[in-house]
């Protein structure tokens, strides 16, 4: 890992040489990254955090690069996080919210992407409600694509920022028991996290209402428990998933009240985890539904650290993907 040592020292000098690269042109799935590459992203993110603590939070790394944030779903946190990351790296950024764009005029995603590609951006950060939509963009060619969440498929930078947060608190992900609780079926955060946590050696437990279990979850390499308490017992990390009202169709549970009683994370339930366990949530919170406020705001909560780490992780991903742009320019 000479590359990463090198990087850490270089970042401190404000001017980043190209220390290492990711094999994949795009980041569409955690599956695009080897365990070593995940470590590289996390190490790089660790170094990027330092920039955010400076009085002048800006480095010239991506000067002259154009990044388009193409968001087809409403997002506050992820979009702000990417935009701040891009600006801290001095990229020129453009936000396209698809609700105000030509999609409403009946243009297809492919045509819209081709038009954006014709303006030669370097990277496109895309969020879309359809699973796999980012693959459609990647297939068009041109820019590097970063998946900022595609339907119920994946949200790789969320898993990376979760991993960075766990690592900071637990030292290592290897051997940690991570319990992921809630709406498993509709969660792209779940899918990216399972891939990442298993790649780095965590023991992953999942639990949630039987109506919200993805088919075939037993083949994901996780321990599936019908009991939230069993999943949480002795966990190092408890990760609550948001009830995805916008993705739900039909009858999944009787009421929020019952959901909270049966599946919500309360202080009593959280006590089943290890004494130094942390509580995580990808946000936005449904307070009093999947998580009690006193847990979300309590001393073991790292929810806002996750958000802070999100900027650093996205800086790392942007930087590492942009690193080899010179290779492909005519």
């Amino acid at each position, binding site marked *: 890992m000479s590359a990463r040592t090198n990087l850490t020292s270089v970042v401190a000098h404000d001017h980043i040489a190209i220390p290492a690269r990711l094999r994949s042109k795009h980041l569409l799935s955690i599956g695009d990254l080897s365990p070593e590459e995940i470590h590289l992203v996390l190490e790089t993110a660790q170094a990027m955090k330092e920039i955010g603590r400076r009085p002048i939070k800006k480095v010239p790394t991506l000067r002259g690069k154009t990044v388009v944030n193409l968001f087809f779903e409403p997002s506050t946190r992820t979009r702000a996080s990417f935009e701040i990351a891009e600006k801290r790296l001095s990229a020129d950024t453009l936000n396209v919210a698809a609700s105000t764009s030509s999609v409403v005029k009946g243009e*297809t*995603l*492919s045509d819209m992407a081709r038009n954006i590609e014709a303006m030669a951006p370097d990277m496109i950060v895309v969020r*879309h409600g*359809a*699973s*796999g*939509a980012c*693959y*459609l963009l990647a297939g068009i060619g041109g820019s590097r694509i970063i998946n900022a969440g*595609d*339907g*119920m*498929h*994946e949200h790789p930078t969320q898993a990376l920022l979760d991993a960075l947060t766990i690592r900071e608190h637990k030292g290592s992900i290897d051997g940690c028991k991570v319990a992921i609780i809630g709406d498993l*079926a509709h969660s*792209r955060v779940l*899918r990216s996290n399972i891939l990442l946590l298993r790649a780095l050696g965590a023991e992953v437990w999942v639990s949630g209402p039987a109506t919200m279990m*993805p*088919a*075939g*979850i037993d*083949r*994901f390499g996780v321990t599936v428990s019908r009991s939230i308490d069993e999943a949480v017992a002795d966990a190092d990390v408890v990760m609550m998933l948001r009830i995805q009202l916008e993705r739900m*169709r*039909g009858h999944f549970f009787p009421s929020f009240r019952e959901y909270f009683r049966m599946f919500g994370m309360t202080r009593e339930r959280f006590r089943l985890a290890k004494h130094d366990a942390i509580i995580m949530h990808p946000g936005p919170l449904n307070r009093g539904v999947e998580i009690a406020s006193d847990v979300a705001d309590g001393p073991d909560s790292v929810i806002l650290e996750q958000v802070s780490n999100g900027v650093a992780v996205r800086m790392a991903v942007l930087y590492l993907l942009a690193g080899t742009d010179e290779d492909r320019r005519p």
Partner: protein
Amino acid sequence: MSGSMLLKGGRVVDPLHCLDGAFDVLITDGRVSRVEKDLPVEEATVIEVPPDFVTCPGFVDMHVHLREPGQEHKETVETGTASAVAGGFTAVACMPNTDPVNDHAAVTELILKKAAETQLARVYPIGSVSIGSKGGQLSEIGELHAAGCVGISDDGHPVADALMMRRALEYASMFDIPVINHCEDPSLKGDGSAHEGYYASVLGLRGIPSVAESVMVQRDVSLSELTGGRVHIAHMSVRGSLRAVRSGKERGVKVTCEVTPHHFILTDEDLSYDTNTKMNPPLRSADDRDAMLSGLVDGSIDAIATDHAPHHADEKAVEFDQAPFGIIGLETAIPLVLDKLVHTGTVSLKRVVELLAVNPARILGIEAGGLTVGQPADITILAPDVATEIDASTFRSLARNTPFDGLTLTGSVVATMIGGRTVYVNGAVSGSDVFGRPE
């Protein structure tokens, strides 16, 4: 065609008449006049069929979408029937989900008129069960039948209402035509786009559970038992459906079923964001695929049908959950069947002819399925050992939506004859020139 033509040599496989071996086929005035060993040449024009070619009764695809009227950018009667004959099919039954729906004799007549102009594969329209296939009011089934419809179906839309299905079965039984149902409980399907299981979950695609199909198959077997009407299960895809069909057949219920090549070859493991892996029913589990193979072997599955569903490339080049369901199948089915069923030793060539000619003709009640003396000489010639390279860009169909593009398969269609006329010759198979050039 006037005069006589003698197909001399080659292997004839005609299970309807219990023939499998070296026979000659004499065609007179476009009709089969004799099928015997070592027929004398006399005045006939002789076609010396090479010994490794197989002469079969023309294949019948009982489930295609020709898209005309209304969706001619996807397919037309002309391109669809050209695709059929290039795939070795001499007859197709076309589903009524056109625009307008084939819920009225005028639409049936239009389709038949187009088919008569084209003079390629014979076209047997399927009328709709209900007006607009909306499930609200029965179509004028008697008039549809009189106009030429050989069955009724709301294909694409299941007949969800059990009473509507009961009445359709009772009513259609007066004409002895099958009710062909796309069995899928709409509430269980929801807005699913792929088989509910591990692979859809990995891709984050909403699932369509197997039972969405099998619960309605079970219902329809019971309704057929109640009414005595003939029910035909379209594109069956799951083990539970097969179980219901088998149990019905054991009790003597008039239930028949078909399976598509993609459902006995591919599984949900083949699923990807490539929208050519999106069809309805979806690609099912390996266990379901194995069940379909067992049904093909033991005879509980009656027919192979393609569910040829052409879509324009633009319509498929969208997000997976927005793309229309369906793939085309006419020009890939026979090489797939020969490669994946015959050469694997799964079924015999005789069984293939039963699945692709004898049984679909019987279910639809059409004049086809065998080399029957006095019937039109609709004939498919195969070269089971000659390789076919699937190249969608060369298809006669207007559409290209196939997941099989680029495959090399063992088994080719050599030529297709309708009423003794050669309508298709596969120039890529050496020896095919004996059949002349298609008119």
